[in-house]
């Protein structure tokens, strides 16, 4: 079980992750891959429980651009931490498609990347099983400043300097 870090707290993960064919329990919050969402969208939304979508590194977030208000969770998978596509996915979801809900990084999520992940808009981190969540919490503050615009601080440093 991978530790889940949300708002600097280690929390229990209540979401049930489903594969493409796993049966759906009616009362559980479920996280489904994009392909399943596209196939069973109406049925999934008709359930009383919440639904989230899991995007793979190659999935285009534009595919759920019209659904972001109906989703309680979007998770982005990092099969290996050096595959950085998910960073762009996150910014697009937050900045272009206006997603406001929980954005979760899952997969090969290590302490040394959470600072960047936070900056591009992730707010929860499903850490790799061997990671120390207390240590990862500290890593959220590895740097006190950053130059660029980012989801967590949209004004770049050069604009904030003027304020």
């Amino acid at each position, binding site marked *: 079980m991978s530790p889940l870090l949300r708002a600097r707290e280690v929390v229990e993960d209540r979401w049930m992750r489903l594969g493409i064919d796993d049966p759906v329990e009616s009362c559980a919050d479920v996280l489904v891959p994009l392909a399943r969402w596209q196939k069973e969208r109406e049925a999934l939304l008709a359930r009383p429980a919440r639904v989230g979508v899991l995007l793979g590194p190659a999935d285009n977030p534009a595919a759920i651009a019209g659904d972001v208000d109906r989703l309680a969770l979007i998770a982005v998978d990092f099969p290996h*931490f*050096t*595959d*950085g*596509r998910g*960073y*762009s*996915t996150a*910014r697009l979801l937050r900045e*272009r498609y206006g997603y406001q809900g929980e954005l979760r990084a899952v997969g090969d999520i*290590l302490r*040394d990347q959470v*600072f*960047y*992940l936070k*900056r*591009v808009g992730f707010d929860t981190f499903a850490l790799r099983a061997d990671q120390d969540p207390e240590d990862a919490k500290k890593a959220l503050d*590895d*740097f*006190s*400043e*950053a*130059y*660029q*615009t*980012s989801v967590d601080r*949209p*004004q*770049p*440093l*050069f*604009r904030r*300097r*003027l304020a």
Partner: protein
Amino acid sequence: MYLYDEIDQRIVDERVRQYRDQTRRFLAGKLSEDDFRPLRLQNGLYIQRYAPMLRVAIPYGLLSTRQLRKLAHIARRYDRGYGHFSTRQNIQYNWPKLEESPDILAELAEVQMHAIQTSGNCVRNITTDHFAGIAPDEIVDSFVWCELVRQWSTFHPEFAYLPRKFKIAVNGATHDRAATFVHDIGLHAIRDERGEIGFRVIVGGGLGRTPVIGHVIREFLPWRHLLTYLDAILRVYNRYGRRDNKYKARIKILVRERTPEVFAREVEAEWEHLKDGPATLIGEEVARIESRFTRPQYADLPAEDAGYDTARATEPAFSAWVRRNVHPHKVRGYAAVTISLKRNGVPPGDATADEMDAIADLADRYSFAELRVTHEQNLVLADVRKADLHTLWQELRALGLATPNVGLLTNIIACPGGDFCSLANAKSIPVALAIQERFDDLDYLHDIGELDLNISGCINACGHHHVGHIGILGVDKGGEEWYQITIGGNQGPTHPTRDGAKAAIGKIIGPSFARAQIPDVVERLIACYLDHRDSDAERFVDTVGRIGIEPFKQRVYGAGGVPGGKSGNDRAAETLVA
């Protein structure tokens, strides 16, 4: 020199703390080699053939003497008393200890230096013209724009794990001295008809395994949009660049597979969303960056100096040095001086700690306490009074640092090669030294004229062999070191007085050679050129362009060619046909 403010300093200090903790966890066995590797690489630390190698960033090649002294100190204290200036305008140490690397970074931070993003699959050190700010053909001072791009790229959260490394070069003058057509992104500062500054944007150039000349995807990008446009290019690359094969992961492959036109349209479409967003530059910021650069307080000097003119007329050795190593300056009475680090018997680009200290002293006395590192692996004192040139030359000569060979055959660009690098197929330093030894007659060298000779120890092309007028590439054949020769490469239209010298990739002349044959090969190429040039104003590369490579092949491989010249079937020749 750009001076950090409190925030710039804090970011670098926090990086030292972060890296120290990462190293501590690695050494304690809490961070695996696989998890640590990308982290240490983004701090410039490679594990090499014999020891770690630490690459320290010298942003856009600009150094203060205080920083150079610190680099000398690090060479003495943590290494073997020398450093290697690289073609990326950085410095590399070949013998540091991993455990001490955090201490080295802490020392660097004391003088506003770091090793951030000097390796790894991220945006690397921004490079530029080593005559930025002083060139008579200046359009803008490219240092200012380099610093803006440096800050944008430093810990950019979206682009820390790109498919592959990413190199950006900025040129701010009429003539391209930054090799912008062989970078992932090249930026040419230009002015439109109203005098507004903008950039011509070139993407997808590069050397390495698949040498490609970059494509212009936008003719004029107003300066305000520089960072949002970079974001757009990088985002398209980050999302769609290949990650399945590291040899096809550079942006040049993506641009080629999509075609430059389609790639440009994708970038423009992405940019539509980012344009005018918060990352849009503002005049206040450009002015602020500009104001944080220290500027030499130039004296009002006469254009000519009688003592200098006399020395030039009467001392042939001084005159030869002036001709090769002294360059024009936009301010009257001043000149720029290249200190050649290409001396016979010394690996190209190497300098000892004592030499660094001595050069720092000279820069303090003669050039406003600043200097530049060039991508040809030399050092430049950019602001020397003409009246001081003769004295400076004498002092350099006493230090063995007055080799008058800038632009000549012995000004060899070479990677560290198989002596140090674990990627290399073959050594490059002994080849460079053997060529320098063969061509040690200065009069002959001057007669040959301008010639770029570049050596890479493997196809990764750190020695830029593709764009050498003569390029030498180390290849592996059945476990043996062989060398393939290309001619006619060119890093770009760097010579204002000559037309037709566009950036070009050299052509292979034929089967490769053993190391011992290389000086003979070069000698025959030169002899062929001297026979065919139409005047001594026609350079080697121009002659190759005019008559083609066939006569050169004949001279090398034909009757009277290099003994044992034909080495049979040649796998290496295939690698370049990509």
